[in-house]
């Protein structure tokens, strides 16, 4: 069968993109190969690791099980979109400080899921963090430092809000 292709208009990290993709291409295929955003990782490609997590309209979603043509016109944020210009996002800083990455392959997926958790719940306990990250696998760290990193980011964010005297989004905390 000849391959069905179409031009897709995607909105990735706030930038409009036009890519030529097969109907069968997943968002992961398109992000990595057409948009050259290789921060999003291809792990299992079957929903069983969470490495490919991105946010679509703010929701963490597995890009390996999402057809790119299904998310035309929606806001797609990848790990590259978390940072603010030259600076890492507070969550990324916390990850580095807590030593929550070893090989780093799982990190983008964890960051995208954890970022959403902190927006829904800026003060999660360790169980809530574990539950929110229960779709992400890490083969290196043993998870303790990953949970530490999210806790640390949340605590720093709360301290920052107190110092400011108002609640701000974690992304404003730079």
């Amino acid at each position, binding site marked *: 069968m000849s391959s*069905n292709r179409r031009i897709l208009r995607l909105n990735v990290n706030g930038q409009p993109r036009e890519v030529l993709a097969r109907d069968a291409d997943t968002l992961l295929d398109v992000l990595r190969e057409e948009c050259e955003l290789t921060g999003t990782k291809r792990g299992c490609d079957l929903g069983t690791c969470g490495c490919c997590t991105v946010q679509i309209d703010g929701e963490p979603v597995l890009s390996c099980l999402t057809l790119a043509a299904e998310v035309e016109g929606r806001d797609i944020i990848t790990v590259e979109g978390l940072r603010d210009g030259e600076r890492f996002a507070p969550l990324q800083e916390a990850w580095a400080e807590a030593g929550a990455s070893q090989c780093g392959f799982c990190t983008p997926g964890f960051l995208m899921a954890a970022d959403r958790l902190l927006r829904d719940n800026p003060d999660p306990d360790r169980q809530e963090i574990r539950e929110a990250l229960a779709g992400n696998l890490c083969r290196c760290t043993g998870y303790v430092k990953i949970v530490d990193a999210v806790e640390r980011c949340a605590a720093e964010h709360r301290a920052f809000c107190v110092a400011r005297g108002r609640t701000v989004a974690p992304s404003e905390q730079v």
Partner: protein
Amino acid sequence: MRVPDLQLHRPTSLDEVFAATQRHGEYDLLGGGTDLLCNYKWRLNVRPQVISLRHLPELREELGGALAAGRTLYEVEHCSILQELCPEVPRAASKIATPLIRRSATLGGNLHLDTRCWHFNQTAEWRMAHDSCLKAEADQCRVQPVPGDVCVATYSGDLAPVLMGYGAIAVVAGPEGERSVALKDYFALDGIRRFADRRSGELMVRLDLPQDASEWTVRYEKLRLRATFDFPEGGVAVAVRWTDGPGSEVAAARIATTAYDSIPRLHEDLAARLVGRCIEEELAEELGASLRDQVRPMKNTSMSPAYRKKMARVLCKRAILACLPSS
């Protein structure tokens, strides 16, 4: 792994779906894709045309006690109306797969989850090396090879037994209009055919709950290796309606299982033994043992059939006792 070539249709109304289904003989419907796309990546029964259900407002409409088939499991899990009306449905949804999968996976897709088997859910290379499977390329079942064999792949959806506990009714729409079928009669005992009376062009639009749904206490117990990611290796839902308030004599009961057959199954004979009785440990143990004797798990999932069978007793007993208000 690439999804093989296909043509994607993105209808925005049911009429457009029916037009597409009538135009293309060989198609699959796509909900969240968390089951279908995995199968396609493994070259399992790939169809050239795929019709997306994600852009249909009709699959997201919820009136009164209805659950729209297009709702994601995340939405089901967090829906305050469902938590009030049928709390075990959101609770069971929260035990499915992972939080990330639940953001995309739909209720409709969950109920229509393809049956699973050790010989089927494998890469094309694995299947070629192992003589494949009746549900894929082979002409004989590798689990239970008997002449004229029926596929014994396991139904592993978590929500069906719970919804059966509430007496849910499936509403399907097709070119001929809408019709309703009790969920307990929706499935056919054949891992390939899967549905009792699926008519051309039809899809599930919603599940209706009967008026008395909120009067039922339902509890679901799931057997799996890890507390996340894993499909059920056994699942038992117990539903009771009390004569005179929680913990009193049982006026009506339902017991349903998943992951023990190629369909989710209602065990009416066992449920009848709860009626007119008060729930106590001995009765729960007795019914658990009877369920264990009834189920016939196949050697086609990760855990051994013997263990899954033994666990039917435990799951059933736990689910019965969990119905008591004190639990």
